[in-house]
């Protein structure tokens, strides 16, 4: 890890129809760092990721990638070639098989030779346990398989930074694990990732830093050990308590 930030967000502000979703968000991220963004729903987590990838236009503040300010539509295509994003609903292209989905970006956007991309894609599929699904259509895959394909699709662009927007939120519990294992694997390889998730135990395992977003502002920015076990704000304590169910059942009386 070097100390030059790969991503800097300064005083980011985004409003929808007059209501503030992001009020004032600032943080910086170094290469190889994994930051997990948590917070109650509607706190602006997804909007933050969408602003970084240019899917939403910020109303104020600035976003710097490798020290250069992201500005204007011409930049966005370039930015998106360096910043990968995976969505909650996988969003594979339904009319293409898995291999078609994987090669589209590298071949068309990066102009890499198809044979080379296909060879790389096959290796990557094998790594996530989908070696035999290269020619399946998305609708023939389970949710967990689709999401693993979506992760591979983003990774084949060799992004400098990967944004994961609640990628397990639409999955059945038994499929969550197989997807999160892939993400843990990427973290081990040193991939720089900004992750929005509701899986607190996963967040604790994967994060170098946790950002707690509430009401459009950063309330805490701390290493996971501190955030999950000794949060500084009451609001964070309440939020974390909402994931506990111990209080529901009384211990047996006898």
């Amino acid at each position: 890890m070097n100390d030059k930030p790969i991503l800097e967000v300064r005083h980011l502000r985004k409003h929808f129809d007059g209501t503030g979703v992001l009020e004032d968000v600032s943080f910086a991220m170094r290469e190889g760092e994994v930051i997990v963004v948590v917070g109650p729903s509607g706190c602006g987590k997804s909007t933050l990721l969408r602003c970084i990838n240019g899917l939403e236009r910020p109303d104020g503040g600035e976003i710097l990638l490798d020290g250069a300010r992201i500005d204007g539509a011409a930049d966005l295509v370039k930015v998106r070639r360096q910043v990968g994003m995976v969505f909650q609903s996988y969003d594979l292209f339904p009319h293409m098989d898995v291999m078609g989905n994987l090669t589209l970006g590298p071949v068309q956007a990066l102009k890499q030779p198809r044979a080379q991309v296909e060879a790389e894609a096959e290796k990557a599929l094998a790594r996530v346990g989908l070696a035999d699904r290269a020619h399946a259509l998305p609708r023939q895959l389970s949710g967990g398989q689709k999401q693993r394909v979506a992760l591979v699709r983003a990774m084949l662009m060799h992004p400098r930074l990967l944004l994961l927007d609640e990628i397990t939120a639409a999955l059945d519990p038994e499929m969550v694990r197989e997807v999160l294992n892939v993400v843990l694997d990427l973290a081990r390889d040193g991939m720089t990732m900004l992750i929005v998730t509701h899986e607190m135990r996963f967040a604790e395992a994967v994060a170098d830093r946790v950002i707690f977003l509430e009401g459009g502002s950063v309330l805490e920015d701390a290493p996971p050990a501190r955030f999950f076990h000794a949060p500084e704000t009451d609001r964070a304590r309440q939020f974390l308590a909402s994931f506990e169910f111990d209080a529901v059942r009384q211990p047996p009386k006898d």
Partner: protein
Amino acid sequence: MQDLAILFRGNNLRRLLGGLGVTLKLSLVSVALSIALGLVVGALMTLKNPVLKAFFRLWLETVRIVPQLVLLFLVYFGLAKAFNLQISGETAAVAVFTFWGAGEMGDLVRGAITSIPVHQRESSAALGLTRAQCWRFVLLPQAARRLVPQAINLTTRMIKTTSLVMLIGVVEVLKVGSQIIDAARYDAPQGAIWVYAAVFFLYFIACWPISLAAGRLEKKWS
């Protein structure tokens, strides 16, 4: 039963086939123009410009509410009366059917494009594809799959509706049929049923392969 013979009397069969030729020519020219214009119109319909929107709305409502026959009369007789503009029945027919077809086709194209989830656009943008690449590789192939069965459906409807043009003096397959019936009114009074059966059969062999193709594509792409 012996009146069936009028189909084969003289050159009647050839005349009927000739009439079918006129029907198909009018249909195919109108369909081809409708598809070409409809693609452009449909793309324009997805824009959010309020003036364009109102214009297309008015157009679409017109072709849906006004019977095709009224449009044919308006163009064929109306132009002659109002502007002393004489156009042939066939030209009037192609104009009306294209006006109708392009509006309907445009709406089908619009529907095919807007029914693609916005996420498809976003995930291709997130892959670093340009707008043009997104249209070419992601949006248009999916729109085409949704569009083709409906476009084929519209085509068969247009072929059938061309039977109206006999009322503005175009001699197509149905008109030839009634000419044959009229000519044999006295010596083959039961001929009408056979002539109409033949016309039915000719429409059927023109439209059936097209419906069949639509069904196949629908299954393949579902």
